[in-house]
């Protein structure tokens, strides 16, 4: 059980450091961010990040709606992200 404590301890310390580190990063609401930035920040949270070129415009519309719901993204985020995907794919 000692192993558990050590590992949990290490993880807790890492989480804390990272959280503090992230807190100092610049703050800007989604409304000030570009679709590209929102894509980079949000689409890596659960799985690897897909590239715009992975799908065509029609597919991005469907995926956008799917991810908006499944990943609980805000309307503004998903509108901007899908727009970005369709522009650069």
């Amino acid at each position, binding site marked *: 059980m000692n192993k558990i404590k050590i590992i949990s301890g290490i993880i807790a310390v890492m989480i804390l450091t990272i959280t503090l580190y992230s807190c100092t990063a610049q*703050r800007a609401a989604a409304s000030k961010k570009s679709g590209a930035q929102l894509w980079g920040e949000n689409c890596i949270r659960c799985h690897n990040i897909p590239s715009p070129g992975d799908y065509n415009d029609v597919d991005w519309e*469907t995926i956008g709606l799917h991810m908006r719901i499944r990943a609980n993204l805000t309307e503004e985020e998903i509108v901007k992200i899908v727009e970005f995907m369709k522009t650069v794919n």
Partner: protein
Amino acid sequence: MRTIAAAGLLFLLFFGPDIFAQDFKPSKTQFMIRGYGHSGLNYEKVNDEDPDVSYVGATFAPMFLFKHSDRLLFEAELEFELEDGEVKVGFEYANFNYVLNKYITARAGKFLLPFGTFMERLHPAWINRLSTLPLGFGHDGVAPSSGIGVELRGSAPIGSGKINYSLYMINGPVLVTSAMDPEEAGMLRFENFEDNNGNKAVGGRLGVLPLSNSSVELGVSFYNGLAGNTGSQYENVAASLYALDFSYVKQISAIKGILDIKAQYTQSNVSDANYYEMAPGDTIPVSYTFANTSNAYFAQLSYRPSMASGFIKNVEIVGRYSTLATPEGAEWEQEASQFAIGVNYWLSWRSVLKFSYQITESVGGHGNTGANTTKGMFAHWALGF
């Protein structure tokens, strides 16, 4: 005649695509098939027994998405799995989603439950960074994975961060009684296609992303419902579960890659009840009871040098620690902990080769009394399409 035909053909060849392109307009309704395949080789050795080596999984999971309008989406997923030489068909989910407004989406049908994050977001083989599930998930898991009912969910920006929520009402869990399965008396079964009592289970999750870069998410989930059959002695037995989850994912230039941390704690409490066992030599069953509380925990850390060049940017290393504790005094009493490490090679954003090693120490468990050490090696692949 031939020249005309040839000219016609040439015309079509050069201008055909343009002609058709002019007619081509994407339809408003869209149908899409996606999904994934997965299989692998497992090597497992319990204590000093002969190892068990087998190919597993051979899973093919097609997912169907039908977008009817910008607001209405249908999603369904089937899972075909080869197990013991037979094809098992699983019905993962099938539900309708309707975007009511900016902040609220309604769903109905069978859906993956946002109870914690593992089952809803992380369990598909092309997302899960290891070949196995953490302790406490999957078969005999302490957390529900899907439910049939209705749900409201959505998200909203708050300050420089955002929150997301989900609230659902589903057919609740079923309590396993001694008559159903003496070995599992007191366990909860979450697959409940027809409700065994009038009481629906109610659950939900609140997720908070405090930072504007969305890198951190903290979540709290709950799930409450009656579990016993109406009219039986278990009619008032209630199940109350909660979970805490944490996620941190960010590409950090200082370490030239993506750091990904995921963790979840799950606790299940079921009201006290009497169960019955037949000891050898007994003629009538003897009643017994126990404090029916289980918990499970996992923390996972992975790193991928995504900003490196060449081969190395597709390599990922991952470590995960998980524990499971089931009630003392139950037939399925168990205390287990597991450490898993792995190396992955990503062929594309959703195709991966996974190699891992894990060691599980457990005391008790199904049909076991003593302590066991299980070592496993896994080579799996998953391919999203």
